Every structure is written in structure tokens, then in C-alpha cells.
């Protein structure tokens, strides 16, 4: 939160951070669901283990991109008798995903202009 916003703007997100934020942009999720969604959406290219995932979540929480949330009304709240912990994307997180998506789009444009993606040339 107290990080220099200019630094945030200039630092691209890591692939895993980006995928975690992307899945949370769809809906609030709990740890295991985040893991599975990241695996699925990245076609298995990004597959964080438990320790890595929670360090990423901790970093995103400390940057103000992700926050802990109450379970959605339609979700099964209990897990072995305990309430599940959900995570949600904050407004700052949404802006970070948008910024990163725009950066990736620019990279894609560049790759296309240099004929590195012939299937997309057109």
C-alpha cells in the first residue's frame, strides 16, 4: 500500500502473480480453488505449490491487490467444520491486472509487427 506508485507502474507482474489476479478477477476463491483455476487457465504452464501460492497471496495482500473476503452466499462455507477463507481482488488489484494486460497486448503487437507470430499476422 505504501509502495511508490511509480514503481508499481514500471514493474511488470510475474506470470504467477498475473494468473492469480486473473482468476480472482472472475470470482472470489479459496486457496485450493485458486490453485486449480490457475493451473487450468494457464494450461498447466503455471502450477504453484502451497508454499509458493501463499507467499504470492501474502505479497499481493501487502501490495493491496488482494484481500481476504467472506465466502460468497452460494458457496459451501464450511470445510471440515471450519469456515473457508476466501480471497478477492481489490480495486488496486483490478487496475494492476488491466495495466499488465495492456502491457502484454503491446508486447503481442510488437511480436506480430516483427512477424514472430505468423498465425496472427493479418
Amino acid at each position, binding site marked *: 500500500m505504501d509502495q511508490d506508485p511509480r514503481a508499481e507502474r514500471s514493474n511488470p507482474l510475474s506470470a504467477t502473480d498475473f494468473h492469480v489476479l486473473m482468476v480472482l478477477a472472475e470470482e472470489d476463491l479459496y*486457496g*485450493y480453488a485458486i490453485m486449480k483455476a490457475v493451473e487450468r487457465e494457464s494450461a498447466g504452464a503455471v502450477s504453484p505449490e*502451497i*508454499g*509458493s501460492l501463499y507467499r504470492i497471496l501474502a505479497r499481493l495482500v*501487502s501490495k493491496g491487490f488482494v484481500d481476504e473476503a467472506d465466502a460468497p452466499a452460494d458457496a459451501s462455507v464450511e470445510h*471440515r467444520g471450519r469456515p*473457508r*477463507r476466501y480471497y478477492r481482488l481489490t480495486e488496486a488489484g483490478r487496475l494492476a491486472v488491466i495495466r499488465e494486460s495492456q502491457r502484454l497486448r503491446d508486447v503481442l503487437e510488437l511480436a506480430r509487427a516483427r512477424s514472430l507470430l505468423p498465425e496472427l499476422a493479418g
Partner: protein
Amino acid sequence: MKSPVRLFQLFLLLFPRAFRDRFGASMRETFEDRLEESRKEGTRAVAEFGLRTAGDLAREGIRERLRPTLIEARTSGLRNNWMGWGMMMGGRYARRGGPPRVQGGEGGSDQGAAGRVTPESQRSSTSRGTLPEGGRQRTPAHPFTESKSFAES
């Protein structure tokens, strides 16, 4: 189910306390979910999952201790940098001729009798021109004594 979870909780101890307090329960929940999933795939899958998770927790736990990711853990990060802190305080005392001696001090308050400097240490410091005219000096507070996460850990 019990023993793998116990083993997992042992590995969790590799993470700093502030991190465990915040994410420990959620990590355990995720571990139980993944364990259940790999049990459906057979013994080999469970073994692979166990090895992968143990390696990951050990690596990430140590990383987290060396470079905390939580804002609340920033003080722990400074604390982990004990060598830098030691050098800083060493240099400070070397310039002053040692830490000031304090009589009847309770937390180094600037008021009343607390935190008063003895004549001996006063002479030693004033001769180097480091004390204000009043001759009183506050004991430098330890930078982490007021930090909750430090006190807890």
C-alpha cells in the same frame, strides 16, 4: 489423515510466526484439499504430492524468513538483518564511547527521574560534544521493542 497433516504443520514452522498466524489455517485447508485429491489418484500420487509439498514448504519457508512478503513482517525483515543492525549500533556507540548509563529508567522517558544519565557517562559524552546543554540524554530505544511482531516471535 492425521499424520500427514501433523507433518505439514511441522513444515509450516519454517515460516515466520506472523505469516503462519495470517495464512496457516488457510494453507492447512488447501493441503487437506490437495491431499484428498491425490488420494483419489492412488498411493504413488500421494507420495509425489508429499515430496513436492515438503520441498516447496522448506524452500518457501526459508525464503519467507529471509525476505518477508507481509507488511506486518517488515520489522521481522529488519530483525533478520541483525548483522546490519549490529554494525549500525556498534558504530554509534564507538562514536560516543559506549552506551550511556541510565539510573532508574523505565523505558527511557524524557521526563522525571527516568532515563537520567550518570555524571560519569555525562562527562564522557559531553567531552565529545554529543549531549545537549541540559546534560540529559535519552537512552536509544531498541528499534524493535515496540514492534508487536518482534515481541511475539
